[in-house]
């Protein structure tokens, strides 16, 4: 929330079925799409409120996406990082979400 010019270090991601995820801003910005949504210069409502409504991503998938955000941030500078594990049933939906979020 950009009340005093300094944005909050946390943002809220809302899934299509209404689940809210409070995520560290730096982690959420792993996604280029969210990064642009939150960029003050683009003046989107997301940047002003700090809330991103992701209408095409369900809560289950968004949970995994958020997990990946933190996973990516944690391993930013390490070598030979193992792939994050997730249930195979989710892989198609997760792929679509990742493609949308440019992650």
């Amino acid at each position, binding site marked *: 929330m950009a009340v005093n010019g300094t944005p909050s270090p946390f943002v809220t991601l809302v899934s299509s079925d209404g689940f809210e995820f409070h995520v560290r801003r730096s982690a959420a910005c792993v996604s280029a799409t969210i990064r642009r949504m939150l960029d003050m210069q683009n003046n989107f409502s997301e940047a002003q409120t700090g809330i991103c409504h992701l209408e095409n991503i369900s809560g289950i998938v968004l949970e995994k996406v958020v997990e990946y955000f933190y996973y990516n941030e944690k391993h930013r500078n390490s070598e030979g990082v193992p792939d994050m594990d997730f249930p195979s049933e989710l892989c198609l939906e997760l*792929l679509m979400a990742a493609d949308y979020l440019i992650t």
Partner: protein
Amino acid sequence: MNATVGQCEATRRAAALNRIRGPQSALTDFLASHNISAAQIHLDHQRRIQEHEQRQQEQNAGNAEDDNADAAGEDEEDPVERQKRKRKEEKTLMKIKQSKEFKKRKFEQKKEHGSDTEMDDDELARSMLAKSKPLPGQLDNCDICEKRFTVTPYSKTGPDGGLLCAKCSKELKDEEKKDAQANKKRASAPRGRRRQTESDRLMGDVKPGAKSLVDICVRRVANVVHDIDEFGDMPQSVLDRLSQILSKQRVLTPRVLELFLRPDIDRIDIYDCGKLEQEDFQKIFAYMPDVKFVNLRFAGQMKDGPMLYMVDKCKKIRHLQLGAANLVTDEAWLQMFQKLGPQLESLKLSELNDALGDDMVEELVKNCQNLKRLKLRSCSHMGEASVDALCALTKLEHLTLAVAQQETSAATLVKLITALGRNLRTLCLEDYPELDDSVLEAIKNHCNKLTKLRIRGTSPCSDAAFACIFDNNSGNPPLVYADLSDNRDMDNMNPEGPQDNPIGLGSAALEALMKHSGERLERLNLKSCRHISHDALINVFDGVKQYPELKDIDLSFVTQVDDVVMNGIFKSCPALAKLAVFACFNARQARIPAGIAVVGLPNAQDSIVVGGALNDW
């Protein structure tokens, strides 16, 4: 206690006396006939619970307990049993008193309370007995579910130190097993990953950090592709990547192909059609009549039928790429050129050993006048006449010719370049042994828009002629892609080549090229250009001159490359992602910055360990 027992007695008596009963179920009757009474069982159970509670209270009360109370509590017990138990208890107490643990505790207590507090030995032993675990065969309450159970040697210890019943023990054991398995998996993961990491490194991907989520998902989808019924609205770029991975894994079967058939998209890319048969090809064109881009490689089982069906059905094809379609006859090719030719913008044919001779190429040229992009690679029936015929395709912007076996004279190539040069943005001439200085000069004079140049496998060209192409006076734009590999002198008797007039791409040409195109150059392939001198390499990659776009360099078999040159390359090319140095035996000590994939070093295992941050060499 007495009251309870009395009550119990009274009920029993009542049951015996009162013979008048209401209606009973068959089961109750049957049980009664065997002297079993549900009421009795219930009462006994209640009594046991009460007894147990009482005993626990007594234990909690600790020192309030004395022999009298004990005796009173067990009033109704068989005196023999009582004696036995007492003896047993005394025995255990004795044992405890003799144990080291007991002595230690006694010592500690004495130290704490001083000599004034006379702690009874018996008392201390009893408190230890309460804490000690029951032996197998005895009853205890489970630590987790609090159920009463018989202790066995296999009873597990719970999280709080108490014993667990059989069910909880089993659950705990299962959990431990699962944990152990997970640990095992975690431990063995790096071994499997090692291979993947190495494979990625050869592809030039050693960026630190996790792979992108899209990448992880695509790989996972490729692994479970046989369980997938439909891809849904998969974006084109992802479909293409999936097709690449599945083709590489050789699992592109007819069943998998169906996942890629979508009438709503206008392109189909299958990189390995080896497992597809006639009807599968036909199916592609039946499902996707509006297709514009067709790319089918290793289409060995494609015959005239599907080809003619495609010509008939798919009227919108603009880009056609077919690999190894060797069962397609000349008649079918002719039909294709005649019907689709005028609309084709790009045509790429490769590995054709049985069709497409000079006369067919003439038909191609006659019908496909709008071609902007043409690639003919390893079409073994094409000869000099074909190259000559191609001069008529004046709209070409991208031309790749790699014709196996048939030799083409330099004069014909000069004619081709003179005719097409001014529009060409890509020119690739591979394995023309006759290609000489006159062709290079023609390239310099006529190809004024070139951004991608590949001249591979010549031997008569001189260093000076190569340098001439990149003369800054020519006014030609800088190259983005330069592949000048395998240009060297082929005289076995004189491996150094002639000194006064160097043959092949040498020092002068390299310096001219980098001066001319260094600003924009992204890919540079100088494999086997073994006449490049060490001085020239040092001069070009001196760490001061910067090549901001250069991402991919191949210097394999350029034996002059050493650690100094490599360090210079790392400093001069800030965007470098991949460097191939096969057979560069002088370069083995260079520190490789993180994020750059160096392949081909003799000590492949060591080079995995790379220097930390980018600026730390």
